[in-house]
């Protein structure tokens, strides 16, 4: 449960005499088995931290020399020409595409995922629960290339008229301005990503909603709550940290999704004008790097891509930290 709710089961089981639950060394008896498993767990823990640190160091070491040679502003430039004598590269375009596509994915996937999870755990008849839960777990395991294929062949033709309709009706609004591109637009990528991460949100949310203690649910019902009011007073507050964790996991996947995006996205030609439109093409960090993996011919060029990867790394890190803070802030109310 720890990974899902941010609260481990041990946190909720009071120790003897109302003490804090046994933790760390106090729980150890000093016997061989305890020391063996304690040691193994410590080594694994340290290993994970070391790995993350080493990856960060690797990215920084590789990226810094290239950034020193960069003649354009790394954060605000839209140019991407890391080769040649005067390397110039900026990430603005990728940052915009990555963040907007992922945002669209989350805006769609989180509410729908939570609703599906609520349906499975609270409304569906018992026989359907198992089947639906299994199906959702199965969907979460579908490889992303399959979503890519499906998006390209089945979904793109369906979405085309929808995009046309939105451009027609809402085209005056900068986000929906027509750009002449159809197919792999940011909006389209966002929807495919939403469908891709929906099972993740659903599966994890379902797991936490299912664990809502009967006592809390009955407490609400006994006060005369309707089923929806019971869900609002007991199930949703209990599942909230889990839903946040699930969303972050999903967002992490959306931000870093490579193969489906590379497959679908319409890359822009160099020097195409800036637009706020979601119906524009573009490249995400991941697709840009994947598309150009063959070009890592000199250290500066390689360094430029690694710098882009570093931004993605930091982005996911920041997103996760924010989620952690949100969960921690309410922690006194979840124990």
């Amino acid at each position: 449960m720890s990974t899902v709710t941010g609260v481990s089961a041990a946190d909720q089981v009071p120790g003897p005499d109302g003490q804090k639950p046994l933790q760390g060394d106090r729980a150890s008896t000093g016997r061989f088995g305890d020391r063996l498993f304690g040691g193994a767990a410590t080594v694994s823990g340290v290993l994970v931290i070391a790995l993350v640190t080493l990856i960060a160091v690797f990215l920084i070491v590789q990226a810094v020399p290239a950034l020193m040679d960069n003649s354009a502003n790394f954060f605000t430039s839209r140019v991407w020409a890391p080769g040649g004598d005067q390397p110039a590269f900026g990430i603005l375009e990728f940052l915009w595409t990555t963040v907007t596509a992922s945002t669209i994915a989350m805006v769609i996937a989180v509410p729908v995922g939570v609703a599906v999870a609520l349906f499975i755990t609270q409304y569906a008849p018992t026989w359907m629960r198992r089947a639906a839960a299994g199906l959702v777990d199965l969907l979460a395991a579908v490889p992303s290339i399959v979503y890519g294929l499906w998006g390209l062949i089945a979904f793109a033709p369906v979405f085309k008229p929808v995009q046309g309709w939105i451009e027609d009706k809402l085209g005056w609004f900068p986000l929906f301005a027509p750009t002449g591109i159809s197919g792999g637009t940011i909006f389209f990528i966002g929807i495919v990503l939403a469908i891709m991460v929906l099972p993740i949100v659903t599966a994890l949310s379902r797991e936490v909603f299912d664990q809502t203690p009967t006592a809390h649910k009955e407490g609400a019902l006994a006060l005369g709550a309707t089923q929806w009011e019971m869900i609002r007073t007991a199930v949703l507050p209990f599942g909230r940290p889990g839903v946040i964790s699930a969303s972050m996991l999903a967002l992490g996947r959306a931000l870093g999704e490579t193969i489906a995006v590379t497959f679908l996205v319409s890359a822009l030609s160099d020097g195409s004008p800036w637009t706020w439109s979601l119906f524009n093409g573009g490249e995400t960090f991941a697709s840009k790097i994947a598309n150009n993996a063959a070009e890592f011919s000199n250290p500066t060029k390689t360094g430029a891509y690694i710098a882009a990867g570093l931004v993605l790394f930091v982005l996911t890190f920041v997103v996760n930290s924010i989620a952690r803070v949100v969960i921690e802030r309410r922690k006194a109310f979840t124990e």
Partner: protein
Amino acid sequence: MAKRIDVSDLNVYYGSFKAVEGVSMTVEPRSVTAFIGPSGCGKSTFLRTLNRMHEVIPGGRVEGKVMLDDQDLYASSMDPVTVRRTVGMVFQRPNPFPTMSIYDNVAAGLRLNGVKNKKTLDGIVESSLKGANLWNEVKDRLSKPGAGLSGGQQQRLCIARAIAVQPQVLLMDEPCSALDPISTLAIEDLVNELKNEFTIVIVTHNMQQAARVSDRTAFFNLKATGEPGRLVEIGDTTRIFNNPTEQATEDYISGRFG
């Protein structure tokens, strides 16, 4: 503010399993009625039928009639939500909403009823906490989480939450079984005060408790293992404990069985 419950010939089922058979009884207003009996004899199950909480358990259904004064709780036009707003319940384990503050816990039922006015809420929260003998202990930390209180305080918080919506009847399902003796005493004192305002039904495993708090006592038992539970006898607590009509009751209260 307090109503009489009339139960006639009630059977309770879970799916095809008959859990309780043929219960008829009257619960007097402004009094405490205790249900005693061995584990699994259906007293908690029967209690839950008095506010239709048994319907929360899959397959739970009843045959028979439960009247609250002149209202039929099982009339087809009767919404279980309405029933539960009239007949409140306190559970075996204290179950304050863990994500809510002390204040919000007490106000939860009122908010469900659409009370939004801050002044009204403040007033009822205070009077309910006073009514549950908890006000003095928590008045300085109303915004702190309810789950941070001791077990006994949590149970009184749950009682405050239940009485805040001004129910006609208060059902208590072994409210002290998870509490220490001092907290138990506090709850028993509280029950004694609450009966001036509410009709109270309390399920208990503790016969001394039944003797201490109740005006009338109902003894439930199984005919045999695997058979449905049934009401053996009901009467004034002093009579049930001193001069029971049925042999089974005498055996149970004298500790010869159960």
